[in-house]
């Protein structure tokens, strides 16, 4: 087993509940059977699940429930009622997952296996941002650069939460909150945004570093965080660090879905715009070949030959709806981003690969990694054993760091928009 796959150390894992105005702490080292930590570029908050095995003596009942204040299991003696804090720090050979200063909160718990001597407790956890989001109601008007609006919203509704990277957009957009939640608005703004010299399409998501609002092109142009490879054999010496970067298993979940892509308007769309001020109707066709895929992960995209538009985007233009004066200025014309964003999002997810690797807590959703898959051939592999089409740079879409008493694994869902080892488009 590679060193990074070995059992990790819970340096600290403490459940904290407010009881009688004081913090009541329960140490969960030695009770934690498994711990799964999740991030995704498609999720505005991080989350986790953990399983605890409790044999009693974990917490004392409060006087309110038991006059003798006897000890019992966490589930009933604490008791677990939701919103408890979990501070944790898990150390693996390649790094650590540290949520000491930013504890996760308990969403809910179940006890699927209870008997007189022990019980299993399943806890689902979420980041504080998710709670603040539920409490948020966005009413005000926001105007100007979309990146600035996202920053303002985060500052206003998610105060003291960490911000990792909020990217400025090239376009401005005026909107009112309409009593929606901050996550709903920020995620929605992603598809209306584009950056300078990049394709349209942003993601709003949280990693352990904080909140991100970043363009797809910005994510894929970033330098790879690590290199992973597939191989049928382990390198000699189990402590060989190369084994920590071996792909333990992988499966290709998706490699194109032409009909779905056509229906989503990835390659050829008709875009119809109605101007409610002038009553002018405009039609613009947009083809993949128009060259709006500015950056890509691999060498080549192979769009199918499409002879007619396969989707119609219909929009009513916003002509000064939120202006203070009567002046009818154009507000973020969808012609600038709509068809392009539909293309960019769909092309990104045209190839999906699930891989399992030895635990690497340094990886985050939105990072890129280089994957080298083995070439399947009867020929000799002296000139390189890596498949030149499937290998290359991939974007981490979903991530799970999984810890259990005997091993630690990171599971990733990787996305790719093109084929081939290299690209020269991301300069």
């Amino acid at each position: 087993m590679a060193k990074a796959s070995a059992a990790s150390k819970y340096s600290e894992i403490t459940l904290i509940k407010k009881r009688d105005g004081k913090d009541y702490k329960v140490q969960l080292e030695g009770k934690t059977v498994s711990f799964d930590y999740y991030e995704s570029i498609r999720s505005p908050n991080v989350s986790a699940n953990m399983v605890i095995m409790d044999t009693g003596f974990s917490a004392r009942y409060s006087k309110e429930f038991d006059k003798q204040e006897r000890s019992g299991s966490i589930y009933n003696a604490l008791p677990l009622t939701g919103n408890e804090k979990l501070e944790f720090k898990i150390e693996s050979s390649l790094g650590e997952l540290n949520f000491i200063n930013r504890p996760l909160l308990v969403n809910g718990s179940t006890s699927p296996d209870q008997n007189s001597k022990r019980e299993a407790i399943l806890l689902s956890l979420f980041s504080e941002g998710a709670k603040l989001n539920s409490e948020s109601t966005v009413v005000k008007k926001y105007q100007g650069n979309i990146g600035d609006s996202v920053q303002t919203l985060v500052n206003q509704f998610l105060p003291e939460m960490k911000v990792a990277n909020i990217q400025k957009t090239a376009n401005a957009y005026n909107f009112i909150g309409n009593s929606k939640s901050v996550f709903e608005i920020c995620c929605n703004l992603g598809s209306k945004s584009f950056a300078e010299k990049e394709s349209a399409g942003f993601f709003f998501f949280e990693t352990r570093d904080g909140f991100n609002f970043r363009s797809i092109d910005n994510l894929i142009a970033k330098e790879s965080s690590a290199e992973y490879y597939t191989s049928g054999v382990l390198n000699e010496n189990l402590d060989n660090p190369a084994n920590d970067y071996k792909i333990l298993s992988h499966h290709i979940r998706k490699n194109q879905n032409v009909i779905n892509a056509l229906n989503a308007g990835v390659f050829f769309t008709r875009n119809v715009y109605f101007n409610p001020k002038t009553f002018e109707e405009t039609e613009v066709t947009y083809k993949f070949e128009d060259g709006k895929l500015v950056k890509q992960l691999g060498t080549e995209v192979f769009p199918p030959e499409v002879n007619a538009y396969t989707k119609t985007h219909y929009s009513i233009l916003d002509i000064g709806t939120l202006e203070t004066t009567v002046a009818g200025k154009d507000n973020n014309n969808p012609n600038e981003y709509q068809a392009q964003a539909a293309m960019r999002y769909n092309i990104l997810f045209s190839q999906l690969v699930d891989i399992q690797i030895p635990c690497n807590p340094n990886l985050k959703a939105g990072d890129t990694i280089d994957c080298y898959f083995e070439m399947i051939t009867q020929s000799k592999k002296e000139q390189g054993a890596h498949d030149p089409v499937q290998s290359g740079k991939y974007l981490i879409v979903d991530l799970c760091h999984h810890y259990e008493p005997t091993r630690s694994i990171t599971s990733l869902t990787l996305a790719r928009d093109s084929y081939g080892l290299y690209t020269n488009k991301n300069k």
Partner: protein
Amino acid sequence: MSKATQPKSFFIGQVPPNWTEYLQNGTWSDAHNNRVKVRIPGKQSQGPEILDKDLPWAIVAQSTSAGNRNGTSTGLSGGEWVIGFYLDENEQLPVIMQVLGKNEVSGAKIKASENGTTQFRDVSRFNSSLVAQAHQITGGPRKNRNGPAVPSKEDFNDALASTETPPEQPEDAS
């Protein structure tokens, strides 16, 4: 998941006084569709978070009798409660379809927004944007046919006395 509990498209809202394109001196080239601003309960707050000036301009859909052969005013001057829908999925482009009937003597409280908002309170028909004209006053002699009608207290009492069951009046009515 949408946080707003209202139906996705349809809304009931209030047109704030003084926020029609005509009253905001819209020029022919800028103004369009006789727009008015609209404050929508459940979407916008009562309070100062969003002032009348920041509300969206709503296009006013008119009856077919306002087609090219006729053309009429929308008749909205502010204070009316209206029903409408959004043109877009993101609920940024409101259209007003109809106005809800109003009984003027139900107890109008304000004649203009206070600190930039009506707070959804009842707005007098003759508010900051519309002054009662002589032809809009029933009862009492017309003292000036062309200017605003300003009935005297006696005129008002006579008008009240002329009805079999006089409606209840606000204390400061005169």
